[in-house]
């Protein structure tokens, strides 16, 4: 379970630009649920992810992971149980290192990084198999620096790397937004497969309303730090794209967009 309990977050407190984004905000995500989050710019989607992962601190309230209070725990420690993929495909991989080196690092997450060989040769076949499933031909480019790959290839690798070890939570921050429609589709299918295979509790922020409806068990719409729509299961399945779009437009007009 992943939970934000009564969280408040104020940006630039005490200045003219003081902006209270979240006021006593609560959200609870049960185990293995795949949640899509939509909302206009500035609605707090990415801030919510950053608070969960510890990239930004909260001013009030608690963050719970499983039954543990992680509010005061540093970001890098939280990532022991969290995988994260960013909008920018370059964020999830090391461009100057080869595919094999990147995969080896990801494979070693949660273990110690000591003075032992960085690449475990016995695992190479397994990496090849994982890469082959992507269908991008990466399995034949193990010694190519990741920086030489296309955005889509890098994002596929980032997704694969973030879910290689046994994590419980997956955080996707508009991870298809920077890709062309065809590649985005491919990455979404891959995401869905990995989430189901590994029973990951997933939070996916997206601007693509269709993806939000098509994938996942639950949809949430955020607006100025509030949840304005929250549908799961049957209710979500019966939701039409038009309805969401109508609500989304209504919100946007309020903002003057």
């Amino acid at each position: 379970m992943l939970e934000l309990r009564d969280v408040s977050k104020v940006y630039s407190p005490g200045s003219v630009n003081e902006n209270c984004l979240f006021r006593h905000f609560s959200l609870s995500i049960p185990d293995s649920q795949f949640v899509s989050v939509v909302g206009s710019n500035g609605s707090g989607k990415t801030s919510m992810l950053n608070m969960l992962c510890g990239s930004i601190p909260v001013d009030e309230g608690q963050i719970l992971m499983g039954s543990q209070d992680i509010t005061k725990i540093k970001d890098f420690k939280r990532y022991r149980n969290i995988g994260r993929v960013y909008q920018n495909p370059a964020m999830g991989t090391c461009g100057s290192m080869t595919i094999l080196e990147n995969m080896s690092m990801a494979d070693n997450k949660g273990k110690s990084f000591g003075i032992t060989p960085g690449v475990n040769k016995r695992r190479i076949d397994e990496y090849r198999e994982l890469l082959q499933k992507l269908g991008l031909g990466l399995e034949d480019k193990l010694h190519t620096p990741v920086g030489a790959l296309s955005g889509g290839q890098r994002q596929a690798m980032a997704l694969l790397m973030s879910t290689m070890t046994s994590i419980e939570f997956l955080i996707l921050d508009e991870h298809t937004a920077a890709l062309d429609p065809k590649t985005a589709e491919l990455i979404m299918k891959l995401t869905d497969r990995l989430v189901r295979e590994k029973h990951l509790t997933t939070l996916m922020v997206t601007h693509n309303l269709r993806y939000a409806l098509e994938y996942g068990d639950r949809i949430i719409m955020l607006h100025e730090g509030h949840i304005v729509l929250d549908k799961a299961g049957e209710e979500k399945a019966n939701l039409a794209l038009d309805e969401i779009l109508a609500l989304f437009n209504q919100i946007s007009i309020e903002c003057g967009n």
Partner: protein
Amino acid sequence: MGIIIGIFEEGMIYAILALGVLITYRILDFPDLTVDSSFPLGAAVSAILTVNGMNPLLTLPIAALAGAVSGLVTGLIHVKCHVRDLLSGIITMTGLYSINLRIAGRANLPFFNMETLFDNGFTTSFPTFLQPYSKMIVVLIVLLLVKLLLDLFMKTKAGFLLRAVGDNQTVVTTLAKDSGLIKIEGLVIANALVALAGAVMAQKNRVFDISMGTGAIVFGLAAVIIGMNLFKNISFIKGTTAAIVGSIIYKACVAAALSMGLVPQDLKLITAVLFLLILVLGGVHKKKVKFRA
């Protein structure tokens, strides 16, 4: 002939320093000015221990250890006190100046009549025809050892993390590792190498001098940048090899400038102007040279 041997001797000693700068500048993307003081720190430690009768060879690891501590200080200032990279190095560099004086006891500490790393039972046992090259051979052994160990380290899991932290800190964080600690680790290794270079230099010149570190960082950067530009299209040449070749070339350029009528007082000016030329000609200034203060 003597000039060429001199170029190789000093070029290879500075190459050890360049390997340290390779870690901070190239891998960590950290402009580490600690180097200007950790180089004489190694020299001071090695000199004072030699004067007090310690085996010169044994002074090297101790000098490296002292350098490691100076890197640790810069790292802690940067990571734990959140001081900018450039300023962290400047703070340590400035403070170390006094510490170096205290370690050596004075600004200039010669040890002309002592056994040194280059003048001992081992080097005098070389056959006569190798005698002119004895210093070069000793430096070469130290340099190759350092290069080999560094190359091996870069292929370990710890080495992967070090490369990753300079490339993309986010990846390291999502791997549940503290990127700050890894930066500190890089600074520790880098300054250990720089101090080792300083110790070897003191052993060769039989003197510690407080001013010997001035411009050390420029030399290291120039060596790394020359090497990188020279071999940028040849992928199988390792960064360490490139830095070593760069260091020898840079030393040769400085020597050439001196032989064209400039006097030793002009040395630092030559060093600086040559560095500028390399930056401009190599086009490095256009890329991310993170020298913002």
